[in-house]
């Protein structure tokens, strides 16, 4: 506690960095009466970019059935932030305990949340990084859980420059060997030429005789 207080005194911006309580809501898209229901509450720490789930209440009355066969109503998942209220849509069937659910918090470089995301997948042998069981629905507590993933905004690709040319004190390129002279480079061609001249010339002279 003392440490956090001193940090607060030194760097006021760290005030933001304290774990923030967040509440994620859901509300059906199609109905006119939008009464948001709390989906989950969590603590988000912008310094470590980690989140801890406090409670999770999946929506009830999930219609059973194959998602491909029926047109399932859409649900909006949203975060009530003072600056922005990002929201995404998913099918109500996504909350069925059959699927592995992941809530994604998209954060910028400073750790501030700018958008949320939601993804489902089949149950596999993944080791979840952060999970919280649902205490209220005891019978499905083992299965029904949600993962929270914090995704930082990517850094755009940079131009990969070629290696810079380094000059030494004399203003010359380091490590570059001095250019060979013409004779040094082509001595073998001259030697070959001379050899051919010797051999061919000698033979020709003999024939004439």
């Amino acid at each position, binding site marked *: 506690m003392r440490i956090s207080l001193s940090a607060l005194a030194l760097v006021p911006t760290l005030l933001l960095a304290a774990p923030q309580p967040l509440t994620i809501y859901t509300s059906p*898209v199609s109905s006119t009466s939008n009464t948001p229901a709390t989906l989950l509450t969590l603590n988000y720490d912008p310094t470590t970019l980690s989140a801890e789930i406090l409670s999770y209440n999946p929506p009830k009355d999930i219609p059973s059935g194959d998602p491909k066969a029926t*047109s399932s109503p859409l649900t*909006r998942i949203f975060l009530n932030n003072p600056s922005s209220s990002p929201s995404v*849509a998913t099918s109500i069937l996504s909350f069925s305990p059959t699927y592995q659910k*992941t809530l994604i918090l998209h954060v910028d470089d400073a750790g501030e949340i700018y*958008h949320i*995301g939601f993804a489902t997948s089949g149950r596999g042998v993944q080791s979840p990084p952060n999970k919280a069981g649902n205490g209220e629905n005891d019978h499905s507590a083992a299965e029904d859980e949600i993962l929270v993933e914090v995704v930082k905004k*990517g850094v755009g690709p940079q*131009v990969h420059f070629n290696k810079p040319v380094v000059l030494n004190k004399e203003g010359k390129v380091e490590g570059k060997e001095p250019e060979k002279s013409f004779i040094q480079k082509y001595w073998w061609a001259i030697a070959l030429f001379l050899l051919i001249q010797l051999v061919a010339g000698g033979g020709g002279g003999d024939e004439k005789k």
Partner: protein
Amino acid sequence: MRLQELLLLPAILIPTVQAIFADDAYHVDYHWALVGQPQQHATFFQQPFAGSKASLIYTLSAHNVLAAINPKDGSVVWRQLLTPSTNSSQTFLAAGEGQDTLISAVDGQVAAWSSSDGRMVWEKQLGTSRIKDAEIIDFEDGKQASTSKDAIVLMEGETPTVMRLNGATGKTKWQFADTSGDVPFQLSSSATSVYYIAHHGTFLGGYKIKVSSLSPVNGDKLDSYTLSSDSEVSSPESILFAGANTASPLLVWADKAHKVLKINIIGTKGVASFNIENKGSGEIERVTVHAPSRITSLPHFLVQYQTSLSQWAEVYHVDVNKGTISKAYDIPNMSGNGAFSTSTVDANVYFTRVTTEEMIIYSSASHGIVGRWNRKVLGASTEGDAYPLYGVTEAVVRSNTAQAVRSAILFSNGDWSLLRNGESLWTRPEALASTLSAVFTSYPEAETLAQQLDIEGHQNVVSAFIHRLMRHIDDLRHLPTWFQSLPTNLMASFGGATISPDSIKKDSFGFGKIVILATARNRLIALDTAAQGKVLWNVDVSSIAPGSKLTAPQLTSLPNGRVQITDPRLSTPIIVNALTGESNNLQSDIVTTVPTGQFSTVVEYTLKDGELQGHIFGRPDEVVWQFKPLDGERIHGIAARPLDDPVASIGKVLGDRRVLYKYLNANLVLVTGVSEITSTASVYLLDSVSGNVLYSASHRDVDTTRFIASTVSENWLAYSFTSASSSVGSRGHQLVIAELFESSLPNDRGPLAASGNFSSTDPSSTVGDISKPYAKSQTYHIPEEISHMSVTHTKQGISSRQILAVLPQSHAVVGIPRQIVDPRRPIGRDPTASEASEGLMKYAPNLEFDPKWYLNHKREVFGIKNVITTPSSLESTSLVFAYGLDVFGTRVAPSFTFDILGKDFNKPQMLLTVAALGVGVLVVAPLVKRKQINARWTT
């Protein structure tokens, strides 16, 4: 395997880019080098230099294009695009007689341009204050060199200032500041002084005109007087004319009801008053004063009255010595709209009247007609019910008969034509310069066949066969005409005859399309791409939907050659026939919903208060998702994957025959956001149904005031921006390309492997994270900034794609081949043999635009704002159409024209070869046969 790769190596030596061939240039492409609507007060005939026999038309258009037009053929001699910092409503162009420079004044910039070649002579920036008037002082004051006359400019601002600028250098000679608080109006000059005309409001709401005369030598205020005009002048617009540079400058105003006309000779205090007699039918809508601008011309002027139905004019004479004004004669009333213009020959003044039927020239001295011609209707005119608005005239008159009169007239449909003795020499469709939106549409016939084939493709075999049989029997009707046209077709095919530009070509290659454009001046225009961009028709939107005005039109191509226009200001969408421009507004035709057959829910998105919102189609209050960048960042641009974006292959085959699977999602939207505070630019790739962010990237040290262009297609996205100079990098332009794959591993489909279908919202039962595609990206330095990007579009998506980038600085459109900017190019090492066989080259930080990529070759395309593409019937070729100020169209074949014979293919030679071979066979066959028989007998 190695050997195979080695054999594949030469494949990379094949040039990957197709340039425009010399014989294709000017044939496959078309271009309207436009200037925009010319302004009446800034358009004139003028010799490009003293002593020149021919004159050019100079204009400063409403689009701030300064241009010189050749009056012989209407071609642009030179153009300069002036870029004001604000949208200034008033721009000026002035030229002194016998001068070789023009003075332009736009916003806070005064510049002098060489009349013959359009090069800038000097430029003067006057800061934030805007220019209210600019004139040339047309007299000799002894000190001034006769070659370059000085300019006087009037500036608005806290203290209006009059300046005299040296005509040769642009240096200020003197300046006069008006501290009285009056509103500056205009400048005028006479032989002895410079007049500064201002007006100040009175308690009763009228305006008094105040004229101050300044010494032209040092700018001292010599005298000033006020005219009691407050009973007539209710707004600055009531002052009709403040004549410049005539021997006796005039100030003309009228009351709001157009009952009385008041004229003051500037420099005198007397006001002549004339009652306006309405000789026409209807209320007087417009009163215009036409006076000669030459200093040596007679002090005659003309007042034109225009009602909604007719127009007439009165000619007045000024007695300079007595200082009186008298009415000389009337020009009779004529129905319809007409344009009057002034021309001078020596000292004589002539007035030319152009109506929809006639062209008449009057002398200012007496009411006799000097010349009269009936206007000849143009051969391929789109004039229709258009009427002349205003124009400029140059006349040759000998012994009181007009030898030649040419008038450059702006018509109400936006056409700018030159009439010579009543005959139209050329027409420039300047209405195209204000295009807001455009769409490609096909000819109805071509559409129907495609539809019929589609029907046959979806029926069972028996009914499809019957349908086909019926169609073929129906087609027999066309057989006689086909036989008739056969000889001409054959001749055209072998004689190399080109398509006659007048006929609407229904070619089998699908190159002939109609482009429908909607302009800011409320017009719909159709161009034929097969006939070098010829204007097919030009209609006024308010004639289809009365009282409507297009602000942000959206055009959609419907089947059967119809186009639907929707606009926020239109209550119901308009549907027009693309061939004729006629509207057939049947309520049943209007497409209000997208096809919902296979989709249970359709989500659309709109930008509202800086937030991107997805909602159920047609129900904006049912919000599905919201996306808003953090505080300080705003959405700069949105680019969506085209609705019709066919992809031929779902994977990318690597050199070692493994496959990288593309991440293909039809609902990709690329949002670019900029933050001025932190100078960062970010891109977010959203799924437009669920609102999930699939990819994000941010760049630091970005110049947020410059263009950020972006585009999405297939499984990749591209964007460009200008990086500001910083501690780590220098200022430059960058092009980023990112490609999305289902997995980073070849031969692995990632989490989507098992599923046949994909939904943005429905839960996925496969293991793995499908919300995150694998992205591979690379950045290149580019030599120029890009203001707009789009992608070529071919029928099946088999041909490779080109990024079409608009370069505003070099007035060009380049097609950057997609395979050149592949983000998988190896960095810092040479490509391996398998990479080389894929066509990947070593990464180079600089991407130079190859001169062969320039689609516009020698042409200069100005002010392009958008580029649209459409497929032709040939897979190889995509049609491209660019608009903004200029209109430019061409066709591109990013992977060569592999499905069409080139122009250089010699058909006669091929036929001759076949014939020669045939003859050879006939001759040789008996010989061979005999030899074979002989051979049998001898053995």
